[in-house]
């Protein structure tokens, strides 16, 4: 029971919500939730009004996803109430949430790999004729949904033919179909590039116009300020502030999230750039990689930009021996090499941080500590026997260095927040101290403060003479961290430039260059 004296206003700030006029579509009131070893949410209140984008911000592990999982029925709160149209409602499970018109795009994609695109989009909502699924209607409806989003994805395509960005768009399409009241987007753009982002923002506008409420979680400041009507900040599971987006300045917002002021500007120390370590010549692989030549030098950060589907991930996987090219050569220290498997590449001093942390970066059944040492087992073992001490030291050093928040290193990695999982993937590869470091979306899902630290770390590693290749969909990241920028489009390198005086427009022009190439080659 709450006594009269315990009463607190929902939002202790001077900004008044328009809740007098409109009933919130959903309101979460004083929600608390604990997990073993951590209080993830402590009396958090939050609501969303019709036609509003309410952004939820906070550091990695602040409790954003947990709050949204409570709203979507995936978790039950320990205490607190959920109001739907002003009525207290217990949301029993995700299906129930769906029936209430609440749909969620989870941070970690939930598509089924063994089904095609159409079946994923309409999963659980398959049109039927009698007792049978009406396949023609299913693919027609899926095509409509995808088309309405401006997506050029074949509903018959098997899911594993799609890259991360395309998968994310399918996930968005699926949720958009289901939502009739509120749609929750938990880091929807983490694998998207500029042009898919635009598609998403157009979708958000349309959903707003239809009177839906949108809850949006992201660590990307630019897009937050672009889409947000209101912003709520969480820190360590507590509600800190709720204001209209226009009432925040960027440094202020960061300071509220982190609890102190930080500087996010990347300091580029112009170290000496040395010899070419790894070089690729004329790589080709099916339709995805048509002609890629690259060279990576000691001490240099090369930013690899391009649209989703440009073939950047495939090219990186070839460099790492994870995929065999149809043609092309790889040279290490000027000598041709053949990497039959990632193990070969790792032995040669190459490290690869993949973009798909759930599918390729982590073993979700294992604890944090085991995941962190998995790529360096020989370093923590003597004659095949693991040294508990060496493991503990490595894990302690890197959890501290990257500020990984885990209740215990023995806890299952699956239970970590998305950003903290990503930090484990980074630590796993950085702890090997490679000569060549290939990063694919290294800061995917990482909060602003930690992102600045990771950027500084990448520069520091390069300054020690490591050759770094960084694939990123975030142009500001590419522009601020790289020394040199290489742009790919439709499987080809379309140009490169020094990062020093490059602009977003320069990079985008090259990223869209394939359309020109296409016109000329046809």
């Amino acid at each position, binding site marked *: 029971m709450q006594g009269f004296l315990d009463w607190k206003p929902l939002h202790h700030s001077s900004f008044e919500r328009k809740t007098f006029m409109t009933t919130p579509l959903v309101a979460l009131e004083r929600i608390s939730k*604990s*997990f*073993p*070893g*951590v*209080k993830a949410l*402590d009396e958090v209140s939050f609501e969303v009004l019709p036609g509003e984008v309410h952004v939820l911000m906070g550091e990695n592990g602040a409790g954003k996803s947990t709050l949204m999982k409570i709203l979507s029925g995936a978790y039950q709160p320990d205490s607190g109430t959920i109001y739907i149209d002003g009525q207290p409602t217990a949301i029993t499970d995700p299906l129930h949430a769906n029936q209430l018109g609440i749909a969620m795009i989870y941070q970690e994609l939930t598509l089924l790999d063994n089904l095609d695109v159409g079946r994923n989009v309409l999963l659980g909502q398959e049109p039927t004729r009698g007792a049978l699924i009406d396949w023609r209607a299913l693919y027609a409806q899926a095509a409509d949904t995808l088309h309405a989003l401006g997506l050029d994805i074949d509903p018959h395509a098997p899911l594993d033919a799609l890259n991360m960005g395309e998968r994310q768009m399918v996930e968005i399409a699926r949720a958009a179909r289901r939502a009739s009241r509120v749609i929750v987007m938990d880091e929807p753009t983490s694998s998207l590039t500029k042009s898919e982002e635009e598609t998403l923002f157009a979708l958000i506008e349309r959903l707003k116009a239809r009177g839906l409420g949108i809850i949006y979680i992201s660590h990307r400041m630019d897009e937050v300020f672009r889409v947000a009507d209101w912003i709520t900040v969480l820190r360590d599971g507590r509600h800190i502030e709720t204001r209209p987006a226009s009432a925040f300045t960027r440094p202020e917002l960061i300071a509220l999230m982190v609890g102190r002021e930080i500087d996010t500007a990347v300091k580029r120390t112009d170290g000496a750039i040395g010899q070419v370590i790894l070089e690729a010549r004329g790589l080709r692989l099916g339709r995805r990689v048509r002609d890629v030549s690259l060279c990576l030098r000691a001490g240099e950060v090369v930013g690899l930009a391009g649209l989703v589907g440009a073939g950047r991930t495939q090219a990186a996987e070839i460099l*790492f021996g*994870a995929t065999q090219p149809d043609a092309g050569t790889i040279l290490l220290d000027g000598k041709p090499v053949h990497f039959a*498997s*990632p*193990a070969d590449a*790792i*032995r040669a001093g190459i490290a*690869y941080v*993949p973009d798909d942390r759930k*599918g*390729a*970066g*982590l*073993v*979700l*059944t*294992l604890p944090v500590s*085991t995941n962190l040492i*998995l*790529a360096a*087992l*020989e370093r923590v*073992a003597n004659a*095949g*026997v*693991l040294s*508990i001490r060496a493991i503990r030291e490595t894990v302690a050093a890197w959890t501290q260095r990257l500020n990984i928040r885990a*209740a*215990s290193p*023995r*806890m299952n990695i699956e239970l970590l927040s998305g950003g903290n999982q990503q930090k484990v993937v980074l630590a*796993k590869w950085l702890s090997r101290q490679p000569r060549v470091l290939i990063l694919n979306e290294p800061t995917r899902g990482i909060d602003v403060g930690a992102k600045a630290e990771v950027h500084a770390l990448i520069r520091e590693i390069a300054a020690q003479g490591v050759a770094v290749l960084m694939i990123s969909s975030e142009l500001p990241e590419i522009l601020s961290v790289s020394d040199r920028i290489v742009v790919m489009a439709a499987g080809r390198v379309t140009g490169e430039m020094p990062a020093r005086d490059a602009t977003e427009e320069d990079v985008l022009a090259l990223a869209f260059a394939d359309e020109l190439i296409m016109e000329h080659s046809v």
Partner: protein
Amino acid sequence: MTTRTSSAQRLSIPSEIGVLGAVIALFIFFSLASPFFFNPSNLTNLGRQTVLLAVTAFAMTFIILSGEIDLSVGSVVSLISIFVAMALRDSGSIALAVLIGVGSGVLIGTINGVITVIGRVPSFITTLGMFSAARGIALAITNAVAIPILNDDYLFLFQDARPLGIAVSVIYAVVLFAVLHFLLTRTRFGISVYAVGGNAKAARLSGIGVRRVKIEVFALAGAIIGFAAILQIARLGSASPEVARNLELDAIAAVVLGGTSFTGGRGSLIRTVFGVLLIGILNNGMNLMNIDSYFQFIIKGAIIVLAVLLDRWTRGRSG
């Protein structure tokens, strides 16, 4: 608000305590229900009866953790026991017999592994084939006639000896458990088994030779199965092509009862021990109570499903 985990959570005891609780409950139940259950000679007998299942379930644990399955273990035990009995009969050398037992186990396991991994045949199919073929070979070699074990030294070494008053086969099983547990939790190989079963793609990208690890797991499981056959013929005093029918099902049941994930990557040998004890005590106790063997099957089936249901249910609640 607590920011530190209790030691129980760190040792992940809570999820194992369910099965252990069932084991203890069953033990107490039979102690009360039958005057013959809780006495030294029956407990020794219980231990001896359970060794075969325990050792086989250890092998099965490795296989399941790596994301595979082995349906051939029962047939392979019977085939290898014939090999061992013949080697013993014809050479009289215990060392040679043991070598042949373990060696043929490694060979058969490697065949299963290579066909599964290199040939890309699902292990369910590969080992279903081996299940049928191994039993067939055993029957063909022996003409369906059992081979008696007449070597007293062999019988003493693997069955009759009782150091410290404990049945020697139980001691072998305990030592094997300790060795395998160390292998699984404290070596590169062990971690690789978990990684390969948990997420083969991530394991490969971490530089782990996924195919190699899987073949090694099959070979290791074969060696363990070979050892199971060595113990088994000492207990029965003969090698028969008919023994160990349904052993694969009991072994899989024991592993899953313990709570090891059927999809791989999650579980432990300790859990398997609990699963083995549950089935072992159940078999022994029901025999003592003279429960009709048809009913025994029914009760066992029901308890296996119930125990797993209960386990899932309590775990679903807690998190």
